[in-house]
């Protein structure tokens, strides 16, 4: 049994970790939903993407709820579905007669004619959703990456604000169904049938207005990142520094004191230093030098490490002094800007996001998993330290050493030494 305060600390620590994990999961689910939706069949352009039924909980969810709550709805839906199916059958016959390049309509991918009520939409995408991952072969134009060449009837018309792909003869036949007029200045892939990104993705074009705005945006960010120095900016910097000093003086505290945020930044870097130094030391001690030159090198390294630790300790002591005794820390004066924010005032700092190139999904997965794993390890190490701090003293001090103590030891062993993945058995020695 754990004493109450210890229990409280441990549980809240773990609960916090669990909560942050769930939060991440929720975020991830949200973006997964968006991506999944994109990979499902797309509705013919012009059909406004209908909102999911107004459920408070599903506002952000996938618009394919398994069912709607009202029975009335269901009934209507059933009738509607039947009607749609009939319509599709008719159309299917027509398109077959017309031309065989049109995307085939299977019974599960019912193309909703434009103007269909909103409630019917989720059904369609839920059915076709399963196709997103499948490798259904596509016929005709859908596979053609360069449609204009191979299929003259399918062309990209770059028309100012609006870019569209017309799906051959069908486009004309069902032209009335288009809502060209309502299409915002986004460009749409104008198809009359549901299609998937896989089939038609390469035909998508960004609207010109958007392209313009986006390139302006990136240019502006780039400008913002380039810190040009000139007399002019120097003067500004001086003015700012002067203002800060004056404000400090006027506040009655003539010197700058470390803030909690700053202390945390420093503590973090020192923690990291600690860990890295220890690792480096162990590495050095575990290698056996081959000759006396290497031996000398090893010695130098060890002594160098000592020097660094001395520096760290010095820095730490200054920090502690500054915190507890309100002494001005010279280290803070030295690098005032660095202490200001985690971002610091790095010269080469760029506000525009750099591209990160990956070559395969596999690589992307490795990258993302590693990234997650690193943060999980950090969390695990943190938890390990917390557990050590709470449990080890408890085990060491508890008397008498009866079964409750043993039970505690066993659980502690599993938590502390095995990451709670394995456990040990304690047998009576007879």
């Amino acid at each position, binding site marked *: 049994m754990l004493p109450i305060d210890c229990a409280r600390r441990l549980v809240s620590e773990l609960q916090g970790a669990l909560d942050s994990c769930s939060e991440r999961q929720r975020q991830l689910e949200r973006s997964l939903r968006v991506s999944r939706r994109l990979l499902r069949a797309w509705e013919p352009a012009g059909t406004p993407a209908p909102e999911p039924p107004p459920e408070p909980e599903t506002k952000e969810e996938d618009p394919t709820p398994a069912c709607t709550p009202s029975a009335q709805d269901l009934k209507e839906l059933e009738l509607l579905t039947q009607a749609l199916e009939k319509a599709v059958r008719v159309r299917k016959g027509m398109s077959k007669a017309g031309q065989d390049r049109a995307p085939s309509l299977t019974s599960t991918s019912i193309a909703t004619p434009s103007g269909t009520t909103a409630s019917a939409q989720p059904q369609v995408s839920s059915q076709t959703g399963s196709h997103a991952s499948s490798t259904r072969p596509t016929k005709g134009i859908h596979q053609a990456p360069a449609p204009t060449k191979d299929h003259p009837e399918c062309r990209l018309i770059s028309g100012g604000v609006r870019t569209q792909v017309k799906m051959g003869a069908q486009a004309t036949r069902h032209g009335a169904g288009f809502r060209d007029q309502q299409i915002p200045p986004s460009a749409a892939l104008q198809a009359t049938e549901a299609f998937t990104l896989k089939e038609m993705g390469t035909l998508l074009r960004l609207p010109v207005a958007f392209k313009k705005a986006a390139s302006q945006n990136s240019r502006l960010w780039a400008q913002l990142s380039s810190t040009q120095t000139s007399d002019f900016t120097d003067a500004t910097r001086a003015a700012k520094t002067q203002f800060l000093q004056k404000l400090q003086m006027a506040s009655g505290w003539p010197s700058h004191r470390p803030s909690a945020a700053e202390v945390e930044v420093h503590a973090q870097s020192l923690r990291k230093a600690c860990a890295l130094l220890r690792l480096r030391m162990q590495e050095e001690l575990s290698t056996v030098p081959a000759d006396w030159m290497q031996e000398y090198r090893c010695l130098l390294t060890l002594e160098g490490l000592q020097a660094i630790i001395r520096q760290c300790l010095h820095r730490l002591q200054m920090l502690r002094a500054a915190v507890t005794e309100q002494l001005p820390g010279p280290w803070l004066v030295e690098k005032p800007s660095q202490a200001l924010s985690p971002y610091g005032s790095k010269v080469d700092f760029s506000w525009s996001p750099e591209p990160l190139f990956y070559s395969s999904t596999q690589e992307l997965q490795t990258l993302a998993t590693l990234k997650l794993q690193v943060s999980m390890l950090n969390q695990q190490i943190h938890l390990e330290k917390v557990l050590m701090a709470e449990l080890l003293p408890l085990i060491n001090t508890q008397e008498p050493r009866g*079964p409750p103590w*043993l*039970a505690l030891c*066993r659980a502690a062993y599993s938590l502390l030494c095995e990451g709670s993945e394995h456990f040990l*058995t*304690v*047998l*009576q020695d*007879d």
Partner: protein
Amino acid sequence: MTQSVVVQVGQCGNQIGCCFWDLALREHAAVNQKGIYDDAISSFFRNVDTRVVGDGGSISKGKISSLKARAVLIDMEEGVVNEILQGPLRDVFDSKQLITDISGSGNNWAVGHKIFGNLYREQILEKLRKSAEHCDCLQCFFIIHSMGGGTGSGLGTFLLKVLEDEFPEVYRFVTSIYPSSEDDVITSPYNSMLAMKELNEHADCVLPIDNQSLFDIISKIDSVVNSGKLGTTVKPKSVITSGAGAIKKQHKKPFDAMNNIVANLLLNLTSSARFEGSLNMDLNEISMNLVPFPQLHYLVSSLTPLYTLADVNIPPRRLDQMFSDAFSKDHQLIQADPRHSLYLACALMVRGNVQISDLRRNIERLKPTLQFVSWNQEGWKTSLCSVPPVGHSHSLLALANNTCVKPTFMELRERFMRLYKKKAHLHHYLHVEGMEESSFAEAVSSLSALIQEYNELDATKSMPVQDVPRLIVAV
């Protein structure tokens, strides 16, 4: 799928083998009506394209062309083997599978084991290797021999050692025919005793069969068939009378009928490995489940219902009777009473239209009437093969590792000692190079050690079953 090779040694071995191949062919013909060479057939037969010169090319798939038994026939006389080669089964064998001599072993284990063993060692090995090469995955050698004679007993057990050295991973299942007390071979106790030592040391499983028991079973079938009460009719091509064709001849050739029982035993033993079923039992499961200690590998078998051996149309009795019979004294293939002895393990191999619930019901029913060793109170192994024996709906083969084999061994030792004390006929053996008197002493002590093991187990019979103290966990 795995394959097995049958090695039939000596007169008795070859006679039983001959029955076996006849039955095996019939069984596969009944199951495989399309005549396609499949996995099941392949376990005992090769499919050979006879047009190919030399060995005949093996065909792994497709229509059955010409089936060849995976067998090696060994006898130091020519009689029986020649008979086979002139009989209806002649196409199943070819001369490359045979090893014969003309001199015979003279009912002398030492001649078979030492003289012929050394003489034919290479030749035997070559044939065995050849037969193994024809297999995709050789799992088991079935050795059929008798214990009392010279060739089967001597050369048959010599073979065991050869197989162990050459094919250590392949199981050696030995069907050994033990002489009855009224055996006309005077040296049979010597031969059996010397062979026992080899069986102890080099066999994986031994299925001891006793001529007397076979004879009793035949008589029983006879009386059922002849009573006419059940309105039975004997099918024209009765298994019992295979090769003879008439019931009347039964008494004249009781050995045929007896051999058929043994052949049936082998068929049923391998049926679950060959055919489909909802609970398969591969050959390697037999020793795994039934042999708790390496030496205690003697399995007492019983086949029920008996009419499945007789190929007669008796309306099936209650299914449960089949299970009861399997444990009765007069259905065992040796003179033994498993019901009143101690079970170490027991296997029930069921064929035909029987479901797991039937099995379970009967196990529950029979369990209280049987005594199992304390550490294996629930020592049951079961299998369900969906293919029944030809012409019947179901059958059961029970294999028991039971201390009831002990009397057979003790009797053997007694008969041996009676002779040995007088040193009677000993010189016939000691003549043979490599034979020494110590061989006899060693053989006795080997068997005595075995009997002692059974004794120790029997001694636990009267003790109450107690759990061994377990490990104690502190928290």
